[in-house]
């Protein structure tokens, strides 16, 4: 369900929440000790609200959920993946001044491509 809120996912429910989702999904790989991740968090919350019904915004805490992070070879956080129909279609690493605009462009492209 695309609830308008961000959802914490785990190694155990990554497949059902992300890969089997019926709407595109953003997955934010983050950690509590990462400053830029803290800066990205409110932007992701805002995006979850703005795209309610069309997009799911999931978060993976890489300190606790190591399997998924390892599986995708995460080497930098925050990294945001865009998934659609179980496929990784785009990504952003790091937070720059144009972060929100860049991420929305990728989301819009994923939604338009359906």
């Amino acid at each position, binding site marked *: 369900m695309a609830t308008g809120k961000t959802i914490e996912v785990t190694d155990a429910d990554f497949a059902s929440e992300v890969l089997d989702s019926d709407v595109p999904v953003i997955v934010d790989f983050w950690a509590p000790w990462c*400053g*830029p991740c803290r800066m990205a968090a409110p*932007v992701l919350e805002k995006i979850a609200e703005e795209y309610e019904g069309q997009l799911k915004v999931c978060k993976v805490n890489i300190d606790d959920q190591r399997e998924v992070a390892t599986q995708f070879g995460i*080497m*930098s956080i*925050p990294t945001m993946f865009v998934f659609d129909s179980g496929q990784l279609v785009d990504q*952003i690493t790091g937070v720059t001044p144009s972060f929100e605009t860049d991420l929305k462009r990728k989301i819009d492209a994923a939604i338009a491509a359906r």
Partner: protein
Amino acid sequence: MAQTTHDVIIIGAGPAGLGAGLYTARDRLDTLILEKFMPGGQINNTDRIENYPGIEKIDGPGLIESMQKQVESFGARIENGADVERLEKLQNGHIAVHAGKNSYIARAVILSPGSSYRKLGVPGEEEFRNAGAGVSYCGTCDAPFFRDREVVSVGGGNTALEETLHLTKYANKVTLIHRRNEFRAEKILVEELLAKANEPDSNLVIKYDTVATAIEGQGKVQSVKLKNVKTNAEESYPCDGVFIFVGMIPNTGFLQGFVELTDAGFIRCDCAYLRTSVPGVFAAGDCRIGAAMQLVTAVADGVNAAMQLKQYFRDPAWWNTPVSDMLSPGGW
């Protein structure tokens, strides 16, 4: 529609903006701080601050959290997610600030948009960064991913040395490359770095007079092309990650055409009173010419701008008085 005129709008809630807001709020000026993301900016990337007088040790996010609380406790309002796109000087001398759908008006503005990390500008950097495949600008964030691996870090300032030392706690081997033969970082950090490199079986190697000319690999970083600037000798140096700490560039793109900027994008100002080319608009922190790009000097700039702003409110003509005629600020 009638619009509130704020006494002061501060653009950017990093150390400079929060320093300014603390003083303007305590002066009972109606203070609005517009922040693009979340308070803090670059300092959020730092987990180890030891040069903020009076605080022995703190991390960036921790310091910002307490600065923010302090500023808000005196009545300043911080609006997060306000991405300022344009400013405009109005006929009545006030300044309009446009951020998305919202516009704000103030009697004076303090520009404290901060800076972002500079890129190295070599082949492979953008590609591996975008793919999250081994190029990083934040040691604090990404060091844990390089446990038992080999990394190269690039730079010679405080950030480069602090982050390189942080990396040595995780990586098997860290090679710091620096284009000169001495570091511009604080001596105490240089001493710590050299002591670490000189330990028996140290995992830290320093290469002086060396630049990176390309980042290479199949799908992820596998090596860096290094060049010795004295001998011109080149080598392909194996590594799993590259950490880049080569300085900062000012976040002033949105100010083009409004205030005078240098070619490099720094805001021109008088450096003493922080007055820009537009009356009522001050510059504070990393964004201005002559900035020391330090936490303490950013805060000090913010405070200085907040003090000078009162002089401007008292006498707008003061804006055009040369610094040389103001050896002691009038009326204090």
